[in-house]
């Protein structure tokens, strides 16, 4: 407070000698000076490369001779959309993303509700739950691969012990179980984030409303729908958006666990684009696949904005 009082004085007595008194926020160029270095950085390392990728997606360009690219118009897009394997990639991407969103948020909500009640050691429990989210993706891929190891992995040993052994042994080599295993690993890493965010949203649920609803004879589920859900709904929407965007671009966890295999069973768009670029060495097709992913993300973002706006207006409940 003292600072304000002391410096308040010059306001009333304009200084002598200050010929060009700076406007309260400096000149109109001031904000640009503050953001110029960062903007330049993002321009060079994000905007320009993205535009180059957009261009590449309309060309046929080989990794081994990248400076020589031939304009082919929409050929890359026509080809990938006509390719049944790409349809499967799209389907796997959609299954992967939707499962991540639904299960990560669902599990996160259950954990958040569990941790929302006061009990001894709650602080420790909250901290420990965060561990998977804080662990580096590389380390997670490594330990998951080891735990799922056909011969010595703890998961297979456990499944064998309870008589549920996977036929053929290795989970990550099984076209049927590889995607669920990758999904389980992804969700293990995501649910701490959703639960911590939802837990902080739950703090703002008015307890007296909950109690009033209970006194009125509403059941637990009805109370949850009428009170809690209404408060956390925007947070759930935000989490759904974040989980979608993150899952659409997730690379290293899937790549290091399965490289998209076996026989394409875990090949999402990003995995497909990476193998097109570095295994098939077709930069044009890779860029086209990447653009499909970017457009899907854009549609999701714009769509979620429109839904959020409609909800605010009260058109949708």
């Amino acid at each position, binding site marked *: 407070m003292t600072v304000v009082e002391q410096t308040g004085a010059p306001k009333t007595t304009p200084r002598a000698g200050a010929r060009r008194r700076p406007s309260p926020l400096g000149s109109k160029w001031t904000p640009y000076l503050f953001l110029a270095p*960062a903007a330049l950085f993002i321009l060079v390392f994000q905007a320009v490369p993205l535009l180059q990728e957009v261009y590449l997606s309309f060309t046929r360009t080989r990794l081994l001779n990248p400076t020589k690219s031939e304009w082919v118009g929409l050929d890359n897009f026509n080809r990938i959309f006509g390719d049944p394997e790409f349809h499967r990639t799209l389907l796997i991407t959609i299954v992967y993303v939707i499962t991540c969103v639904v299960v990560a948020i669902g599990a996160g909500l259950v954990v958040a509700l569990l941790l929302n009640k006061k009990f001894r050691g709650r602080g420790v429990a909250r901290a420990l739950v965060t561990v998977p989210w804080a662990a*580096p993706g590389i*380390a997670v891929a490594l330990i998951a691969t080891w735990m799922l190891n056909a011969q010595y992995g703890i998961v297979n040993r456990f499944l064998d012990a309870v008589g549920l052994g996977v036929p053929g042994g290795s989970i990550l080599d099984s076209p049927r179980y590889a995607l669920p295993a990758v999904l389980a690993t992804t969700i293990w890493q995501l649910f701490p984030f959703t639960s911590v965010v939802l837990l*902080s949203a739950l703090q703002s649920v008015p307890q007296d409303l909950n109690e009033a609803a209970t006194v009125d004879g509403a059941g637990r589920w009805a109370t949850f729908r009428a009170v809690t859900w209404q408060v956390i709904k925007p947070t759930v929407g935000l989490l759904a958006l974040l989980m979608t965007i993150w899952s659409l671009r997730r690379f290293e966890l899937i790549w290091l666990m399965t490289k998209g295999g076996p026989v394409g069973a875990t090949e999402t768009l990003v995995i497909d684009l990476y193998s097109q670029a570095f295994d098939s060495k077709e930069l044009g097709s890779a860029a086209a696949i990447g653009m499909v992913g970017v457009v899907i993300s854009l549609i999701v973002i714009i769509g979620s904005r429109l839904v959020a706006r409609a909800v605010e207006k009260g058109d949708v409940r």
Partner: protein
Amino acid sequence: MRRFRFGITARIVAVLAVLGVAVFPLYWMFVTALSSNSDLFADKPRLTPDLGQFGVFVDALAEGKAAGWLLNSLIIAVGTMVLSVGLGIPLGYALSRFSFWGKAVVTVVLLFTQMLPEALMVVPLFALFRRFELLDSLAGLILVNSAFVLPIVALILKGAIDGIPKELEEAARADGARPLTTLLRINVPLIAPSIAATAVIAFFHAWNEYVFAVTFIFNPDLQPASVGIANFIGELGTPIQTVMAVAFLFTLPAVAFYLLVQKYVVSGMTAGAVKG
């Protein structure tokens, strides 16, 4: 009364189960690192760490390349932290305190970058790096990692500056302080917790980064730990205990620091996304 007690018990069991699921893989990494060969390949695996094997951590650092990898990761992470926070503070300040032409565009661009996969950007960036001779250099990785983590850093810091009353700055300005002085003297000390949180985010973004490192670094002596550890996957030459020991040493600082600033990280990330 009876039902109530049951509720408590069920809750405790459920919480313990969740914690078990959350912690077990890293616990298992630790146990595997500290297993003797006979335990590892026995019919019944040992479920607790054999502390007599603790030398594996010392050996993992003393022999092989792990110490060099971790040092490279440290250099990249510190560089990224300094550069991205250094650029993010003025950007966040400009977005929070000024209204200017193009502000909406800048905000949209910052959010838009959040959806660009590294795997997509790696091809044009490779060409850029070759032209500017940034391949095989830790400085190159610092530059690109900073660019990728900068938007989230700036958005979090903008949110933090939004929370400071403007009156504090106005007083300083009335006293004739320039905007930069105001930012450094008034705002920066007040948002110190958020700066610490973004520093942790930036540090571990670079510490964990894999795609650029594996594509832009050819010299094995310059490899960071993320690439070194990823190369262990599917490779059979290195004893699994050493692999897990290195991975554990790589994971531990990330987990410890995130737990320390968790509160600010979560509120910052959601605030940055909500307000944009």
